[in-house]
């Protein structure tokens, strides 16, 4: 079969799809076919109306000069396309909301009901609005330059502007120059240990070409020490690889993004990408390491490049410009694996078994019908060095096709005893592994009826906590004992 034949078969699709698309097109008033003279007349009338009433209606598609980024005291970046006056009189004036998602429930879990302000979200300095952008979480304080002053700004718990209303008010701190960067673009605050928190002013600039941001502000070509990437699907496992910036594929990629043009993204498109691409893992994550400052970007589908800190706009690349780098990232031929220092990592069961502290306690028995849904190792990380110092625990979630779960958490003995400490004597389910029996497996009742069964066994070195539904007490005991077998 070829494309022609598939096109014919597409012609046979169900009528309801055809009618739906027809009706919508009519309602949106898309310009139908018109005689040329009539079309010109109508275009003139509509364009005149657009000038008079500030409605961005186009019958032609003029090329925008660039994207202007503006901020206001609510911290929301607004992005505009700017056109030459003689081509079309208006700028597209649609505010673009921050794309980030704010999980209020999760934040409550972390913070409780406290209105503790974690950081300054944005502030005004020198007449410019600076927003917090995550650049180099563990950026070194060697980058901290001259103190610029003291600012007061609005803090936030998450990234949802609506949360500002709930906060106690303004907070403040000293701001400093970031060595090698123009303070009109980037400043920083000192954090815990050697951490710095960076703030970027992306307001009031008309950015047209990639180089307006990548070279003029971030100085990619001068400062790039390494290009780190994650391939599609690797971000869960945090598998990162580094490329030498001297490689011709990396150099030509930088040249290509410098020459490419910025364009505005509409809200629906951005939201669609924000959900679908993240779910489908269909992107490369790129980290440009600029000597203590990391600039993170997302390369979606090989064509769109989004850069953190510049919401609402992206640049598009031609396939021919990006292909050499994509092939290099696919093959890992010239890359070096990057040591993973995040505080958690998704792994396979076999990789979990290799963990030096808790790997030997991975249960060898799981009832039939349960498949691994995920396995995650949690690490402790030194806040000053940013390096992992040890394993805090390993968690597994096994699931059946009808979504019954077995949750296994391997951790320290103190974790298990603390977990059980507030429980009534008759509901406690924790015992030394040698004393664990079916009687320790407790059923709890919540507001919605019976909750999953729970049990926990421990020895001098580790504990295994288990929570499961649809599993017999005997099997639960067997799971826990299989983790301690011979130990």
């Amino acid at each position, binding site marked *: 079969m070829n494309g022609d034949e598939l096109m014919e*078969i597409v012609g046979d699709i169900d009528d309801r799809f055809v009618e739906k698309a027809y009706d919508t097109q009519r309602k949106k008033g898309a310009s139908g076919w018109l005689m040329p003279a009539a079309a010109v007349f109508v275009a003139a009338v509509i364009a005149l109306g657009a000038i008079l009433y500030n409605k961005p209606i186009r019958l032609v598609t003029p090329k925008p000069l660039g994207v202007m980024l503006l901020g206001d005291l609510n911290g929301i970046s607004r992005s505009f396309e700017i056109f030459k006056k003689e081509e079309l009189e208006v700028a597209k004036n649609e505010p673009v909301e921050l794309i980030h998602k704010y999980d209020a429930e999760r934040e409550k879990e972390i913070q409780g009901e406290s209105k503790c302000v974690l950081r300054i979200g944005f502030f005004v300095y020198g007449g410019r609005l600076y927003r917090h952008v995550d650049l180099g979480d563990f950026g070194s304080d060697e980058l901290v330059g001259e103190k610029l002053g003291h600012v007061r700004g609005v803090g936030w718990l998450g990234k949802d502007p609506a949360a500002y209303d709930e906060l106690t008010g303004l907070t403040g701190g000293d701001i400093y120059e970031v060595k090698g960067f123009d303070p009109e673009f980037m400043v920083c605050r000192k954090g815990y240990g050697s951490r710095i928190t960076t703030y970027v002013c992306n307001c009031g600039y008309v950015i047209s070409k990639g180089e307006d941001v990548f070279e003029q502000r971030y100085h990619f070509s001068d400062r790039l020490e390494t290009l780190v990437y994650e391939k599609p699907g690797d971000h869960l496992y945090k598998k990162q690889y580094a490329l030498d910036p001297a490689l011709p594929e990396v150099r030509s990629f930088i040249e290509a993004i410098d020459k490419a043009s910025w364009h505005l993204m509409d809200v629906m498109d951005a939201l669609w990408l924000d959900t679908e691409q993240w779910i489908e893992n269909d992107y490369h994550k790129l980290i440009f390491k600029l000597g203590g400052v990391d600039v993170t970007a997302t390369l979606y589908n090989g064509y769109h490049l989004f850069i953190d800190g510049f919401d609402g706009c992206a640049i598009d690349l031609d396939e021919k410009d990006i292909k050499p780098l994509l092939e290099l990232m696919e093959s890992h031929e010239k890359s070096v694996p990057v040591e993973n220092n995040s505080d958690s990592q998704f792994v396979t069961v076999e990789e979990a078994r290799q963990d030096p502290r808790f790997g030997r306690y991975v249960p060898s028995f799981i009832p039939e019908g349960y498949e691994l849904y995920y396995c995650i190792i949690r690490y402790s990380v030194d806040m000053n060095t940013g390096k992992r110092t040890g394993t805090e625990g390993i968690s597994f979630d096994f699931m059946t096709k009808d979504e019954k779960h077995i949750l296994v958490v391997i951790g320290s003995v103190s974790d298990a005893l603390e977990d059980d400490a507030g429980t009534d004597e008759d509901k406690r389910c924790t015992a030394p592994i040698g004393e664990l029996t079916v009687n320790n497996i407790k059923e709890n009742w919540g507001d919605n009826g019976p909750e999953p069964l729970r049990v926990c066994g421990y020895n001098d070195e580790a504990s295994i906590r288990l929570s499961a539904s649809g599993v017999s007490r005997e099997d639960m005991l067997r799971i826990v004992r299989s983790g301690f077998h011979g130990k």
Partner: protein
Amino acid sequence: MDDSVIIELYFARDEAAIEETSGKYGAQLRRIALNAGADFETARECENDTYLRAWQLIPPHDPGEHLFAFLGRIMRGRAVDRIRREKAQKRAAETVELTRELEECLPGSDSVTESVERSELKASIDRFLDGLSERKQRMFVRRYWYFDPISDIAAANGMTESSVKTALHRMREQLKKHLEKEGYGI
């Protein structure tokens, strides 16, 4: 005039059916052919062919609530056939681009055999479209059924052209995976 009344005219063999059809749907039908790369004369001729074919098919066929889809399907087929015949040596750029795009959806150019029932593949594509949001359904159908240019789809949806191209590219990839999953790539 309501579609049901127009169809009654066909059933009554009243030639006013053609006039009414042309008045209501002529522009949209011609647009399908023009979008596919036909010139104005060819579009007009295909339009006339479509009315003749509709006259021959109704009755006994009754398009019911989907008169435009019925007519549009005939028009689409006519237009594509004419363009292929008339420009056999030099295909219209529009149809070349569209068929090239759709070829990306094929799970291996040799793997979908001739013996696959057309109706099965059509049903599979229907299932694929059912799984899309309404917005994406519209974009896909406007591009590959109505042959709308990217610029028109962008304008109708308030999107940039590059966003539309990306969206369509994603849908073609999804269609390919869908066809593979339904066994057309094996």
